[in-house]
């Protein structure tokens, strides 16, 4: 599983990254988290509101920071 956090370093992007780490830990999963901060790459995913979360090249969240619980469900769904 490959995870990307899209966003140009705003406070919400850091929050999203932190919660994703927390959700991964609580599931006992290991996955690299890449930060994508340059605008052309962000927009290439057709994401217009940041932060966004991309799991295995699929955009699953845009423009908000979901709860750790919701992220757990998302990650567990991809995993299975």
């Amino acid at each position, binding site marked *: 599983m490959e995870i990307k956090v899209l966003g140009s370093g705003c406070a*919400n992007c850091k929050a999203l990254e932190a919660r994703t780490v927390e959700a991964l830990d609580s599931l006992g999963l290991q996955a690299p988290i890449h930060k994508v901060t340059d605008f052309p790459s962000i*927009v290439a995913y057709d994401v217009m509101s940041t932060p966004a979360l991309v799991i295995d090249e699929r955009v*699953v969240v845009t423009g*908000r920071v979901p709860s750790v619980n919701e992220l757990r469900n998302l990650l567990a769904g991809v995993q299975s």
Partner: protein
Amino acid sequence: MTLLAKPPVSRRPILRSWGKVLVAVALWIVFYALNRPFWEWVVFDAAGLNPGTRFGSAVEFFVFDTTKILLLLGGIIFVVTVLRSFMSVERTRALLGGRREGAGNVAAAGLGVVTPFCSCSAVPGFIGFVAAGVPLGVTMSFLIASPMVNEVAIVMLYGLFGWHVAALYVVAGLSIAIVAGWVIGRLRLESLVEPFVFETTLRGRPIDLSADLSWSDRFAMGRQEMRNIIARIWPYLLVGIGVGAAIHGWVPEDFFAEVAGPDNPLAVPVATLVGIPLYSNAAGVLPLVEALHAKGLAMGTVLAFMMSVVALSLPELILLRRVLKPRLLAVFVAVVGTGIMTVGFLFNMVL
């Protein structure tokens, strides 16, 4: 046992989250109604300050106004975020896709008001619109209307000054966004957009994840947005209310009416210029606006100040520099600034 352990696929979690919201609404109403009597009792009876003194009235104003603004703000942000969770930037872009200039500018300004969009996303939003073929001027109408005509500001203007000021503000903000976007479109300044914007290709289908949210998700978004905005703007709020309280207690009535009344032609341009380096969203600047107006600063001047603070901010200009060349940025500031000053002068003549 297995049957019992399996949670019924009922509406129970939905009912529970609606129940919580109803309890919160009831508490909100009680707090709002008791705000003034409670603080009057604390400041004048319990702490023994004299309501006739400047200090006493400034302290009472500060605590009362802080509580009132926080209550108003929290309630409004929650309601607006839940309603807005039904809209998305992706849907807005799809709606603007085939539009020409003119009608497109009007649609873009209107959608700018209702689409959930943070000015921190101005750059990806700009690229996403332009790369998808939305004309530059139409995109600009969206980007100007979005921070300027902010629903939180509309509701708070209504709460502080009444419906006619709120309505005037909406009409003025939309007009500026429509006209400024149209002018920028007419000037044919596409060559002043950084070339990479047009070279960006959008791969994959556009994503709209707003459709499959449950009510609990939407309420959670509302709570989160409330915390986020208040956490971000409370220093501005406290400074605004503190300055407001000082003005309330010490500055004589009608002080500004003499130095910066409607007759002074410099008042509006100065208010607009002062607003540019100041950065706050509309909700943060309103307590200050209320105090300035209470002391006789003309409504047009006050609104020009507020519009300049929210629509022309240095941090946002620095962000936009990533996609706009300096000359286009200068045109943007000049066109929007002229619009704001025009509105300020018009209001001072009309009100």
